[in-house]
């Protein structure tokens, strides 16, 4: 009898095991879907960023306006190589800035010491703001140091016996403080490598930078900073750092930003530990060569802009062109299916093409012949003609933007719009060539904060926890002397899911009329219903997010009768609470970025003249004719508060009104 009971218990246990594993798998599916939503929206944003830059580059290269208009654009991008560093140092000087008696934040004395740096950490823990005088002083000192650092930090752990590596922080001060709390403050005995993306998105990017630079000054051999793709002033315009600085430092924010722009270009690109471990922000490609990287003048390579071809189209001796000028590439600035027109009688559609195809189109004067497979023996990741300039640029972009993939090979990273996807064979080859054993990188958010791949030869580390939403992921840091340690922060699938769906709903709202149009396309007889299959096709056709729509449909509230969906009712229900204006939201982040780029003096508003020039450029890009009077009228009517200038809200409103004028 006992044997029988035992047998039953075994059977019961097996059943429970089987059931539980199924349950976990379904949760994993939900978690993964949520993840995909966030990632696809985020990467779409990153791609937009590059497109935006491309757009301005295109204008630079192809637009032949009167010289005054051209100077507006070149003014935005000029790298100011003319002005020597000493002049800049004078400009950034802190000495004239007084600290009033009303200031209750920390007072710093120099030279920086461990005490001063820890005092700074304490102050930030208590949410104090560092006075702009001290900010400029601290940054100025750090800038001097950065300029003598090599492109690649070489670190040895023979004395300290250990080293700690932190991944992306993205302005999340709490995570940095947690790392310090668990692991200790940086010192010569406790060296750290910070692997880029210190800024953007989080609210305390400034504080993180100040802390990192402070410790860098105290322990130049104990703190090693690698540049990330977010250490770039154009990216910062979009992803929040510029806004944060201008908000915290209203009087001196612009100066601080300019100094930081220079400092970012002087950040080292990689760290090698004990000659065995390579630490870079993004990753590598099949052409990565650390010797080339070590030799380049890193502050002169503009990594978020691709160098132009040697042949200049519009030779203009009066115009001083930057050493690495801008990108070729005609790209759709706005959402691909949005007709946007200044003259209502000429509806336009803007095509988006992949960056590669566009480069091909525009560089048709070059003799490079490309197949669709890009199967060049020149290197699958780079079909363009090679120049030393371009080599250097590519080396840097690959380091800062690439992602690993599971398959062998190396191909352009089309999701991000820059860098490569590289496979395990490339890892082996590159590590082998440089006699390295491990690659540690960041750049991608991982659920557990870290992830090995490529036979454990590549480790991804991400230190900003709850990156997408509370509970979406843990942060992690890596200690070389022990196995990976994760910060224990709770994950909550439900909450993350809700947040992802909220973000997705916003995307749906932004494309409401396109969606309706796509649904109607599948319903020619106007029955009001379509099949789920058509629903999924329409969704993907409009949004192009590559999401598994059918898997998501239950969370999007698609209930069906006989397998058919009442799409009008569905859209109504889904978006009934939305109060955001459709077109404006769709282009929101692009428009805001454009605004901040044009607003070169960061005054928060555009003059009518700046607005007029912008409009002319945009209309040239969009291939429409628009006369000055029409623009002047538009500008006047846009200036809602009649103060003679256009602020960001008025700017956005202008685009919304124009879009509304298009006949549907």
């Amino acid at each position, binding site marked *: 009898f006992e044997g029988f009971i035992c047998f039953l218990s075994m059977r019961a246990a097996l059943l429970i095991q089987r059931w*539980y594993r199924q349950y976990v798998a379904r949760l994993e599916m939900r978690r993964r879907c949520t993840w995909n939503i966030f990632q696809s929206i985020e990467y779409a944003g990153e791609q937009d960023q590059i497109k935006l830059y491309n757009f301005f580059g295109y204008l630079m290269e192809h637009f032949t306006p009167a010289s005054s208009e051209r100077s507006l654009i070149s003014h935005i991008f000029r790298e100011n190589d003319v002005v020597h560093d000493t002049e800049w140092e004078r400009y950034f000087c802190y000495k004239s800035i007084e600290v009033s008696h009303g200031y209750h934040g920390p007072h710093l004395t120099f030279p920086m010491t461990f005490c001063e740096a820890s005092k700074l950490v304490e102050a930030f823990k208590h949410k104090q703001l560092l006075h702009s005088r001290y900010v400029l002083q601290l940054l100025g000192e750090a800038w001097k140091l950065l300029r003598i650092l090599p492109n690649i930090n070489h670190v040895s752990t023979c004395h300290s016996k250990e080293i700690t590596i932190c991944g992306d922080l993205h302005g999340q001060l709490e995570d940095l403080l947690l790392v310090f709390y668990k692991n200790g403050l940086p010192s010569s005995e406790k060296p750290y490598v910070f692997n880029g993306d210190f800024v953007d998105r989080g609210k305390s990017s400034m504080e993180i930078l100040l802390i990192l630079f402070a410790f860098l000054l105290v322990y130049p051999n104990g703190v090693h900073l690698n540049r990330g793709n977010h250490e770039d002033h154009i990216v910062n315009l979009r992803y929040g750092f510029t806004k944060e600085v201008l908000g915290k430092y209203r009087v001196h924010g612009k100066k601080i930003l300019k100094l930081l722009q220079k400092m970012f270009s002087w950040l080292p690109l990689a760290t090698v530990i004990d000659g065995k471990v390579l630490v870079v922000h993004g990753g590598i490609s099949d052409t990565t060569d650390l010797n080339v990287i070590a030799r380049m003048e890193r502050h002169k390579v503009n990594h978020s802009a691709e160098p132009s071809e040697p042949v200049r189209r519009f030779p203009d001796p009066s115009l001083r062109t930057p050493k690495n000028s801008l990108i070729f590439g005609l790209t759709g600035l706005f959402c691909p299916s949005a007709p946007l027109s200044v003259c209502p009688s000429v509806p336009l559609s803007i095509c988006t093409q992949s960056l590669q195809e566009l480069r091909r189109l525009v560089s048709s004067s070059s003799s490079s012949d490309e197949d669709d497979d890009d199967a060049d023996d020149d290197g699958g990741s780079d079909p363009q003609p090679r120049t030393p300039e371009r080599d250097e640029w590519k080396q840097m972009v690959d380091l800062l933007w690439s992602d690993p993939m599971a398959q062998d090979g190396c191909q352009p990273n089309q999701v991000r719009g820059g860098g490569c996807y590289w496979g395990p064979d490339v890892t082996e080859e590159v590590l082998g060539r440089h006699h390295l054993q491990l690659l540690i990188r960041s750049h991608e958010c991982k659920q557990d904060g870290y992830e090995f791949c490529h036979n454990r030869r590549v480790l991804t580390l991400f230190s900003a926890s709850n990156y997408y939403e509370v509970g979406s992921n843990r942060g992690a840091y890596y200690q070389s002397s022990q196995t990976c340690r994760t910060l224990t922060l709770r994950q909550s699938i439900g909450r993350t899911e809700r947040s992802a769906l909220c973000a997705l709903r916003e995307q749906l709202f932004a494309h409401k009329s396109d969606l309706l149009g796509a649904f109607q396309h599948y319903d020619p007889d106007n029955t009001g219903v379509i099949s789920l299959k058509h629903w999924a096709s329409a969704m993907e056709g409009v949004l192009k997010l590559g999401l598994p729509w059918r898997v998501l449909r239950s969370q999007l509230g698609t209930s069906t009768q006989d397998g058919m969906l009442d799409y009008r009712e569905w859209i109504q229900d889904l978006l009934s609470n939305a109060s955001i204006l459709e077109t404006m939201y769709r282009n929101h982040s692009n428009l805001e970025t454009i605004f901040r780029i044009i607003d070169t003096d960061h005054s928060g508003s555009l003059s009518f003249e700046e607005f007029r020039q912008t409009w002319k450029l945009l209309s040239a890009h969009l291939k429409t004719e628009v006369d000055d009077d029409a623009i002047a009228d538009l500008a006047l009517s846009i200036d809602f508060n009649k103060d003679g200038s256009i602020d960001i809200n008025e700017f956005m409103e202008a685009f919304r009104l124009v879009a509304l004028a298009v006949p549907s």
Partner: protein
Amino acid sequence: MLFPSALGPEILVTGVHKRINDAFQVFDHDLNKTVDVREIGAIVRSLGCFPTEAELLDIIDEVEEPNGFICFERFLPTMSKILMENKFRPIPEDTLLKAFEVLDQQKKGHLEPNELTEYMRQGDEPFTQLEMEEMLSSAVEPDSNLIYYKDFVNMMVLDGER
């Protein structure tokens, strides 16, 4: 499996293919129609199947490529067959509850954590340390440190249905 009268078998097959494709897509990170072999468990189970680990390994044997990946072309026919034949049927909720009741020999209405651990960590396919910890973290009632399995089953069923 009965075919609804309005739809022919071809339509049904297409529906099944679509479901498999969607589940596969979620784990296809590089968008090249392959997934890591370690994700197969999640994919098969999310399609409503309840295989044992051994049965899962059989599936993997059938479809795995030499490089440790599974490509969609080979996975689709195998998985379609499984779904059409309704293999690895779901375990109904009351069966699950009865299973817990069998383990609860003294009919207390609850299990101790170490009792459950002992059961889960034996047999042909015992739970790993990690699986056990995860199960306990959601099953154990924190105040009493006991597993009220009826509530636990209810919670899992609801969660899974979303």
